[in-house]
């Protein structure tokens, strides 16, 4: 299976990834490859400064449509400056937290056909 390499600097046209709009473009490209079951490498080489607005739009949003396992399987980060890893962690943790489904502990006792899901916080 071939792997698609997306070079971030090709989208940002600079040494910085500081635009949410550029993040959207990277996201669109990731998704179109994911839909074709093509693994993607995000190559951050040459990028010296990143902001959360960029990472939210290109990586954080993925958690709305894909599970952690799917993302783990299809996405790989390369050449990310070690000083920016903390920022990526923040964005991913926040995205997981926002989109993670929280099921009630007594899920097996719920009559899913007749009960109102709102009564269980669903």
């Amino acid at each position: 299976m071939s792997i698609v390499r997306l070079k971030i600097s090709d989208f940002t046209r600079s040494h910085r990834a500081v635009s949410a709009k550029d993040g959207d473009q990277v996201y669109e490209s990731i998704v179109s490859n994911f839909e074709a079951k093509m693994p993607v490498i995000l190559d951050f080489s040459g990028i010296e400064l990143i902001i959360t607005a960029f990472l939210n739009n290109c990586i954080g949003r993925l958690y709305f449509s894909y599970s952690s396992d799917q993302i783990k399987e299809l996405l790989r980060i390369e050449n990310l400056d070690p000083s920016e890893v903390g920022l990526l962690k923040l964005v991913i943790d926040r995205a997981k937290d926002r989109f993670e489904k929280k099921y009630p502990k007594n899920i097996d006792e719920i009559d899913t056909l007749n009960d109102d899901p709102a009564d269980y916080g669903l």
Partner: protein
Amino acid sequence: MAFKRLYLPKENIYIPSSLKTDDEGFTWLANLWEITKQSKSYSLDFQNTNWFEANLCAILGAIITLRTDEGCHFSVCNIKSNQLNQTLSNNGFLSLFKNGDRTSTKNSSIPFQQFDMTNEEEVEKYIYEHVLLSERVPEMSEQAKKKVFRSIFEMYQNSVMHSGADNLFVCGQFYFHKRRMALTMVEFGRTFKENVARHNEAFKDYSGLKAIEWAVISGNTTKKAEETGGLGLDLIREFLQMNEGKLQIRSADGYWEEKKGVNFAKDCTNQFSGSVVNIEFNLRDENIYYAKEEIDPNSLF
């Protein structure tokens, strides 16, 4: 061919004796936006002005630019102090006026500039050309500088994503004796109050202040359900606390500030038809902010 000179009624507006980057200064400028609604010729009179913080040119310049587009005419008069004249000249503010000094911008200031919100590359260039030039901040660590840049870009992106405005106006000033730098950004788009009310029906009666207070809480975002956000302001606040800097927001009828981690907020008596953000950085910052993460980024998924 002879052109008819359009007659506009003339009005003098006296700039206060002291115009500072605080709730009173913002309130005066919010009022200026309201009182210049009519197409008139306005003369901004500095005869009483002893103190004027140059980064506020972002707001004053925005008002003049936008009202001029609507048919007003502005001039300046009675700038008595040479120092003030030089400051307003150096940052390019006076070049807004036909009778103003057109001296080119000098590197002692961060110039007044108007940006098209869609032209992000211009803003990037401006920030890198005028903010934190190494000769001005020799004692600031590289990590601290990076945090300053990140804070500015996060704030700018907030305006791009949430205001819906066409333009952003920016101006800054180095206060060398205090070793601080202030950068003011202003737009006349959707306020924090409007965005928060739109986001959730339950928030529709929030005051301007309550809307700002909601927006600065970690994790809160007015973005759509399928998007993520709410981290940028949080990171800025965290950094400014360490840096001993200051963050101020004036939007609609709310004013909120955080200085060295201490908050001050108030409901204002008038409305500001957009949002102003001022960030003040401490340039004596030699902190080492982060160790490089040893973890594999791919283990984070």
